[in-house]
């Protein structure tokens, strides 16, 4: 018999601050973490991006100099989550890390003193395991831009079928680096102003960084949200371009809805990177699922695209939206700009909320849909 799995706690560490409630409040106030950044370590050009300030993490963990910048960000976020929920680091606790590139900023970087092995993701997992004394080595998932949302789905499946685990910690994160920035620049995917998801004048994405963490349990604690269903399908179409028909995303949403028993959906937390083709693909997939009329937001104009964190970060903020019965506006949207209609949320209205759909899509043609319900 499959057990239900709940999200009983969460934490977000972003340029807007540490704490998921604090981050939610900032979004309701309309604050964006995106700013012009001129940093020769990241790019020769000025970027519009969201970066965590050094003062927010430096010296805030034990033996700080021993850990890389990204490891420090992960550790600080996990520490806050463990303390808030008194989670034991024992063998009943499963730990999943989702990241696209981990410590890749160290690779061939002229400025690093860390051992070359640290760019391998299992090494990063080992550092985090040792810091907290976790019984299990963290499982690492690296699936492009759906990594964070997929890690939630995988953790749920592992808890549902494995009596050996009582609960799980799922943590997603990536940091800005020259490695990543130069790649997106080469794709000409970056916007030089704050991005505009789903808008007529959208012209590309912004990169950002954040760490998001969720605490999954098999018991419905106070204020917990149940993961009703998840489904993931590949487009089988192109390794870097979104499908013209939104096939994989369409199948993911349709299957997630079916598995959840077709509940009414109160809002959609979309991927919405603000590239021309991605947002168009999402509009097509949602229209095919009959969801064009559902209020929708993308959070990319607040945080930028946070890669391996994004699916998890946006799920956590969606959960806060459910709890507060308040919709988060889709910042950056003004004029409709997709061939199929959408209903981006304009203001942070209060209304009873029970269920939302989270979607994500990524390079390699992967897509995922998750449905969350307040208990």
């Amino acid at each position: 018999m499959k057990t239900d799995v709940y999200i009983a706690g969460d934490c977000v560490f972003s340029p807007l601050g540490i704490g998921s409630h604090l981050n939610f409040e900032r979004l309701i106030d309309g604050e964006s973490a995106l700013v012009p950044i001129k940093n020769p370590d990241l790019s020769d050009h000025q970027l519009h991006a969201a970066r965590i300030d050094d003062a927010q993490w430096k010296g805030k963990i034990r033996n700080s100099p021993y850990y890389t910048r990204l490891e420090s960000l992960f550790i600080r976020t996990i520490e806050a989550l463990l303390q808030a929920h008194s989670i034991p680091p024992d063998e009943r606790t499963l730990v999943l890390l989702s990241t696209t590139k981990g410590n890749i900023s160290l690779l061939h970087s002229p400025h690093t003193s860390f051992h070359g092995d640290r760019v391998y993701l299992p090494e990063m997992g080992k550092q985090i395991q040792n810091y907290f004394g976790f019984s299990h080595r963290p499982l690492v998932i690296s699936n492009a831009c759906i990594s964070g949302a997929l890690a939630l789905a995988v953790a749920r499946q592992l808890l549902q079928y494995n009596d050996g685990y009582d609960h799980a910690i799922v943590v997603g994160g990536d940091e800005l680096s020259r490695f990543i920035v130069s790649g997106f620049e080469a794709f000409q995917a970056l916007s030089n102003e704050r991005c505009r998801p789903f808008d007529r004048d959208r012209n590309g994405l912004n990169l950002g960084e954040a760490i998001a963490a969720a605490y999954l349990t098999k018991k419905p604690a106070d204020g917990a949200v149940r993961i009703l269903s998840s489904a993931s399908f590949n487009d089988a179409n192109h390794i870097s371009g979104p499908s013209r028909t939104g096939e994989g995303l369409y199948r993911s949403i349709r299957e997630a809805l079916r598995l959840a028993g077709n509940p009414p959906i109160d809002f959609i937390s979309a991927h919405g990177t603000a590239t021309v083709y991605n947002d168009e693909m999402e509009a097509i997939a949602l229209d095919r699922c009959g969801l064009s009329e559902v209020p929708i937001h993308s959070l990319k104009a607040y945080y930028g695209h946070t890669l391996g964190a994004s699916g998890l970060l946006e799920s956590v903020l969606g959960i806060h939206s459910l709890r507060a019965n308040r919709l988060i506006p889709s910042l950056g949207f003004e004029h409709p700009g997709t061939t199929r209609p959408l209903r981006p949320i304009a203001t942070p209205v209060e209304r009873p909320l029970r269920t939302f759909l989270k979607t994500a899509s990524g390079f390699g043609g992967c897509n995922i849909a998750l449905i969350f319900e307040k208990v």
Partner: protein
Amino acid sequence: MESLYIQSFCTLRNGTIRLNGEPIYGTSENTPVDDFLRSAYRQLHVDYPKFHKMDVLCKATFLATELMARDAGPYPTDTALIFANRSSSYSSDEKHATGIYATQNPGASPATFVYTLPNIAMGEISIRHQLHSENVFFIFDSYLPEFLVPYTATALYDKQVREGLCGWTEVTATLCDVLMYRVGRSGSMAHTVTNLKRLYNDHE
């Protein structure tokens, strides 16, 4: 949960490709990995022009997948893909990083950058075999059938899919250590940790 079986398996290691344990292609152990994969492609009469654009991780997993299709037939469209390795997409990471930090004409190429994600290998296979299914790429310190076997069993049961295409896919510019296998609901070799350890260790 129903019993599952290993229906076909393929290893690429030390310049040799074996299908269900039988060597079907061999070159010198010291052949660079990319040369080994390219000559195998030619010798085994695979015809798929996109192969030449792929990085070594994609080439190796593509070949293994292709050979198992010849052996055990086409993949059902819902085949779940579950891969794992240690170095993620290191060969492409290295190439991209070398380009951006080059002292002369530094720069990034989209054709390289797109391969700096390990799950691209699953994307290539999905396109080739028209698989609309779940893809999960795990990163482990070493080959870990103790995790993959029960994970695959629950994934197939949970998603009610017929087959899984799984494997340990550790490929860098200098090392090719691949064991891929098809898991399904019929066959003669049980999908167990013991069998998967044996298949991996038999050809060390």
